[in-house]
């Protein structure tokens, strides 16, 4: 385990370095001058002023020095300054991070809550009507773009039936939860949940459809195994065989792709946040792209990469817990 962990963290640092170099080199090749972006709307500016600002921002340094400075800053937790807000990037991103994380976790829960029963039922009812209906639902779930599903949910649940708000943010779910635990006041939690539900479901559906298909196919395979037949033969109740024996093994491939799915959910969150006006890093970075605020874009890319890689490391460690056959050396 020890050497594996060290190698794995080494790999992670390698990837991060590569991402850092690629992003910072490429972003400096972009046509257009950041100084023009900063100075936009200041007509009285002279060429000397611009030159002074370029010196101050280090834009006249060789690209290697610039990338080195940026990397040095990163190590100290400094992501540079936003061109638009003229404030450090890190607090800007950190402020937008919790809503995205809450949305992603909630979507993941939704995905599991839909995928597990759907996958189990279709596997156990194989080649019967329930299986066909489930399969059709799964193909639909995979084929519908998340932003479109979001619009349709808004159309029905917000515009037509007025059950949930069409968009916006109801405050942090975790702090509302904490508030409920400490004071017993359910209000903020309800509000936060009402805003969370539509974007969460939207984001969760595509992943759940995909997972349901995987759970179904693995279950079908596992149910054919000798140990399942043996357990049934010795008179074990089906419920125990299905859940305790078969399902546990059907879960392994799902956990295997869990790490990749976090990436997928993050990608989805970038789109969904814009549909529902969710104040997370996805919406923020699309705005930053529009403002040509590249330090922000770069910061989002770096922070997301760190989160994504850390989760993947965790998932790798999780395999061991689920599948005792796997041992890392």
């Amino acid at each position: 385990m020890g050497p594996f962990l060290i190698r794995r963290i080494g790999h992670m640092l390698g990837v991060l370095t590569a991402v850092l170099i690629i992003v910072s080199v490429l972003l400096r090749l972009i046509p257009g001058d950041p100084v023009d972006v900063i100075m936009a709307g200041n007509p009285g500016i002279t060429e000397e002023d611009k030159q002074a600002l370029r010196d101050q921002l280090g834009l006249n340094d060789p690209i290697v020095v610039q990338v080195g400075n940026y990397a040095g800053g990163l190590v100290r937790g400094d992501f540079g300054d936003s061109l638009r807000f003229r404030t450090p990037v890190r607090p800007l991103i950190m402020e937008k991070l919790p809503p995205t994380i809450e949305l992603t976790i909630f979507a993941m829960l939704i995905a599991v809550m839909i995928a597990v029963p759907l996958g189990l039922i279709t596997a156990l009812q194989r080649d019967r009507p329930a299986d066909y209906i489930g399969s059709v639902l799964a193909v639909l779930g995979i084929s519908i773009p998340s932003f479109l599903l979001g619009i349709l949910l808004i159309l029905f649940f917000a515009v037509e039936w007025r059950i949930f708000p069409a968009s916006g943010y109801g405050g942090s779910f975790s702090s509302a939860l904490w508030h409920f635990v400490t004071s017993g006041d359910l209000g903020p939690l309800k509000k936060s949940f009402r805003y969370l539900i539509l974007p969460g479901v939207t984001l969760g559906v595509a992943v759940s459809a995909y997972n349901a298909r995987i759970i179904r196919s693995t279950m079908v395979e596992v149910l054919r195994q000798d140990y399942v037949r043996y357990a049934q033969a010795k008179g074990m109740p089906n419920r125990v065989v299905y859940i305790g024996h078969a399902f546990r093994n059907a879960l392994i491939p799902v956990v295997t792709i869990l790490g990749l799915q976090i990436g997928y959910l993050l990608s989805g969150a970038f789109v969904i946040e814009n549909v529902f006006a969710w104040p997370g890093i996805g919406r923020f970075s699309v705005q930053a792209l529009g403002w040509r605020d590249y330090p922000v874009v770069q910061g989002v890319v770096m922070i997301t990469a760190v989160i994504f890689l850390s989760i993947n490391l965790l998932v790798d460690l999780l395999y061991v817990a689920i599948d005792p056959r796997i041992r890392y050396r």
Partner: protein
Amino acid sequence: MTDATVASIDTSPVPALRLASPQAPWKDLLRKLRKSVKGMTGAALVSLAILAALTAPLLAPYSPTKQTVRAKFADPIFKDSESDYILGGDNLGRDILSRILYGSRASLSIGFLVTVAAATVGSIAGGFAGYRGGLVDTLVMRLVDLQLSIPFILLAMIVLAIMGPGFWSVFVALAVALWVNYARLVRGETLRIRDMEYVVAARTIGVDERRILIKHILPNVIHSILVLATLDMAFVIIFEASLTFLGLGIQPPTPTWGFMLSEGRNYLQESPWMSVFPGLAIILTVVGINLLGDWLRDTFDPSLRNR
């Protein structure tokens, strides 16, 4: 081998050989397709989309970009039987049906171009990596590892930041994201096949590398590539629509389903049709491609039927 022996083989016609003529696999595939509900549904939906893209100028009742005051928020024909606009008009008075027909062009062309590019580049890289091994293999696979460590959206953001929004940015972002799948697939197969006797034999008699890759290894992976490419095309169409919806993809005035939805979103109350119809177009096309891809996978590799 002398010419005489070759001639003696050629002169005795073997009927069984005719079955293996190059056309047979296609006929066989079509025959299987006709028997499958899944395959036929997929093929029908995909054909419909392709037909729309090819004949948009003939089928579309109006120009997709022309704005007419009378068409502004016009009801579709099933709500108002007097309406001149079958699927209604949008916020700027453009015919929704015409825009959907033309919009299929953007979706299908990006889906097709990206998959062809990713499959070609990925297969070549994977083939050489697997066949040559050594440094080439290490380089290609490290690149693949790196790419798989970064979520797609970050890649897209980098590309979009550099190239700005547009058709070719979407193309580059998606092609760069997808080539790795083909590289991994083809490399794996190449590693398996390259030391098989018939390949070793070919190498021994001096067949060059390119010919071995094309004549001996490609036929073994082409089915898997085809399945992957079909399913990828669905992914590409969804992501193009998503990026365009965000304003980062193909820019107006080119009619696209993604942009129609992004406009329609603002008028959900007044005119849900602006969103519903382009949405249906995307769903039907992607469902069709996914069904066709599933069917291809079932057909080419029955062991994967339950996946």
